[in-house]
């Protein structure tokens, strides 16, 4: 069975997602030893990718506030193409990754050793462990369990197809589902549509339609600064309340939400 990773990368006015994707594909090669396909909106020449698939990004855009420490600005956010992952992947078994996910170990390889059609992270770990992170446990106060779309494993089978069909349905009727699940944000988020789809396919109950990922999802927020990145170590200056806390990760895979800071370090 063919195995590989899929990365969506659409540059906006300021952020170079393709640059992030190139760094990620090198890490995927090094730690997971599988090929990477990039989905983007322009023809690029790079030997780092197994395949380059070009699609129209404008269909999937919204506006989002991007934070860089204490400053922020509103930029275009091309995130919803992820709902096409099942259709676009060239692999039988795929790990879809955000370009701002930094791989520092081979734990994700273990995804290929299990039988679930779809696996996602529900357990996550804030690298600054003193912060309250209720928003990554439930999608809203009365909503369902939160799953991270940041890193999703799926097989090319009927169950995964069903999952992505429901995600597409949620995307097309997002204003309805946003009200139903009482999501406050106006921004379309893949995390929410993936979580809602999992909830629906569990017959609106707790369930095991979506399997566990092999490890824990570590993340830093967009108000955290990245001070340095080496092969396996990342140094952060995290922010909580009015305080800062220095944090070093070593051989942890980390989802870095501060895109500006990440770009400076690559």
């Amino acid at each position: 069975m063919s195995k590989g990773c899929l990365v969506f990368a659409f540059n906006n006015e300021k952020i170079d997602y393709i640059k992030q994707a190139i760094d990620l594909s090198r890490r995927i090669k090094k730690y997971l030893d599988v090929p990477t396909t990039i989905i983007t909106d322009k023809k690029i020449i790079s030997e780092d990718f197994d395949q380059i698939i070009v699609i129209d990004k404008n269909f999937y855009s919204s506006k989002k506030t991007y934070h860089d420490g204490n400053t922020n600005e509103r930029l275009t956010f091309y995130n919803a193409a992820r709902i096409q992952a099942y259709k676009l992947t060239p692999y039988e078994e795929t790990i879809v990754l955000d370009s701002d996910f930094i791989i520092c170990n081979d734990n994700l390889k273990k995804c290929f050793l299990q039988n679930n059609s779809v696996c996602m992270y529900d357990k996550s770990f804030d690298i600054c462990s003193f912060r309250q992170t209720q928003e990554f446990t439930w999608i809203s106060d009365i909503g369902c369990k939160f799953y991270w779309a940041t890193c999703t494993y799926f097989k090319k089978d009927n169950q995964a197809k069903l999952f992505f069909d429901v995600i597409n349905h949620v995307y097309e009727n997002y204003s309805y589902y946003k009200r139903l699940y009482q999501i406050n944000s106006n921004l379309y988020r893949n995390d929410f549509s993936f979580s809602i789809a999992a909830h629906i396919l569990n017959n609106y109950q707790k369930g095991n339609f979506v399997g566990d990922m092999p490890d824990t999802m570590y993340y830093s927020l967009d108000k955290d600064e990245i001070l340095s990145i080496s092969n396996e170590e990342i140094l952060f200056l995290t922010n909580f309340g009015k305080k800062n806390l220095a944090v070093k990760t070593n051989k942890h895979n980390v989802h870095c939400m501060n895109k500006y800071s990440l770009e400076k370090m690559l």
Partner: protein
Amino acid sequence: MDDKLKNALDFANYAHVLHNQKKLIKQKFIDNCVYYYNAGKFSITQDLIVYCLTYKQKTCILLDDNNIPIQIDNLDGFTNEISQVYDNAKEQYFEEYKKLTSNKSVKGLLDE
């Protein structure tokens, strides 16, 4: 600022960073103890190893992390494998913990 207060605040900052780093390496240890066998996910614990060691048959059925029954065809081999994975994770955790607690400044904690 009063020297005593400054020392106290410096120590508080150090303790804060140390506490956070300890949590990160502990979670990594837990992640490193995950083992897959026949598509079952097993979080290796001392209890699981002892259970396997004391089981008197050559094969057995174990419940994985999701309570799915998994056939273990070669229990000896399985026990050796999980013991090895657990030992490696434990050794790495021990070394990192030792390094961490031997540093007495924030800079030391982050430079180690």
